[in-house]
């Protein structure tokens, strides 16, 4: 069940689309799915660091989003990551924020 919407059967988010002809997805098998989840956690943490948050995989089925002091929320998919991140951070998570863009650009330059 989707934790936010209360809808049975998951939310079928576009980043986790069910495999079928004509659809692009990395949700095609256990290895591919696991690899994508690891990349997603790493990518999300690069952004979430700016808000004092971190994301971890939970049993290959969900994610756990945590603050530095250990306050946590279970996250179903990317659709729910950002509203919960804003809730835990107590401020908007805006990808157009010049401060965030500056930080990500600097890190990319350093990396």
């Amino acid at each position, binding site marked *: 069940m989707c934790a936010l*919407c209360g*809808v*049975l*059967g998951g*939310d*079928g988010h*576009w*980043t986790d*689309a*069910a495999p*079928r*002809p*004509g*659809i*692009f*997805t*990395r949700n095609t098998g256990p290895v591919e799915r696991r690899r*994508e989840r690891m*990349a*997603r956690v790493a*990518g*999300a943490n690069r*952004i979430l660091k700016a808000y004092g948050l971190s994301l971890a995989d939970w049993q290959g089925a969900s994610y756990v989003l945590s603050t530095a002091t250990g306050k946590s929320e279970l996250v179903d998919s*990317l*659709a729910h*990551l*950002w*509203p919960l991140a*804003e809730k835990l951070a107590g401020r*908007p*998570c*805006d*990808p*157009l924020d010049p401060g*965030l*863009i500056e930080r*990500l*650009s600097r890190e*990319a*330059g350093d*990396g």
Partner: protein
Amino acid sequence: MADVPAFTPVNLITGFLGSGKTTLLRRLLDDAALVDTAVLINEFGEIGLDHHLLGRIDETMVLLPSGCLCCTIRGELSAAIRDLHERRERGEVPPFRRLAIESTGLADPFPILSTVQADPVLRHHFRWGNVVTTVDAVNGRAQFERRRESTKQAAVADRLVLTKTDLADAAEIEALIECLRRLNPSAPLVRLAEGPFSADSLLAHDLFAAATRADAARHLFVDAETNDGHGAGVHAFALSLDGVVDWTGFGLWLTMLLNRHGEKVLRVKGMLNVAGSDAPVAVHGVQHLVHPPVHMMGWPDDDRRSRLVFIVDGLEKEAVDRSLRAFLGRA
């Protein structure tokens, strides 16, 4: 049920009050190519005017009894589509291969579109096809200025149908077309009053169908790059990226952007050169809703740049471009 597609395409026919939706629908239903199309119309007010004007009413038509479609979306629209689906499964209605929904003139298209994808039953049997928006050539520009609904309806269209061009003067039509090209540069434009048109080209050639046609990508981004991305209010702009795009990073960026600015992103359409994929991946979203990404057959030409077209309400191209590049490590 061999004749029924695994995912029945759903077309939304929208447009402001009096813009000619029912006239268009009647013309479409007269077309032999659409004989397998079921129709849901929204009865607005007590008179049910749309219902009485419609030439063809058969048993595959379900009238939605209440007022505005968008207020009853999670209940009545999904129930009406489920009912049609179940009756088709039981053989009580002909095995329709397409569903067309005519919305009310005041309806925001977003909650109607979201119902098919959000409903846990419907999303396994139906998928979105083209959104067709009618625009009144006489009153269209005035409506865009006064009514935000009408601007949104034009912005989310995959096909724009100009109506009443026989009643408007040439200068007004030209000004309206210029306005539409700014709002929605890539949607093909059809003039309803001027002779025959292909129902198939309006409803059938959608983005998902493009997965089966190698040449389809060529037609996705017509004229989009002619816009400069400046200006207040609703406008379109195009972004392009060299090299391959990290799919995971793109997903994180777009979900974050739509979470914070989904109301302002009326529409996003893109063709991405995704790392690890030989063919382009098409993404297509309306406000907070993104359709499942389509794996296309091939590139239309030698240009391998990723391209994204945004139709936004008040967002600046520069800010979106800078953000995307920073998230993908391209700054």
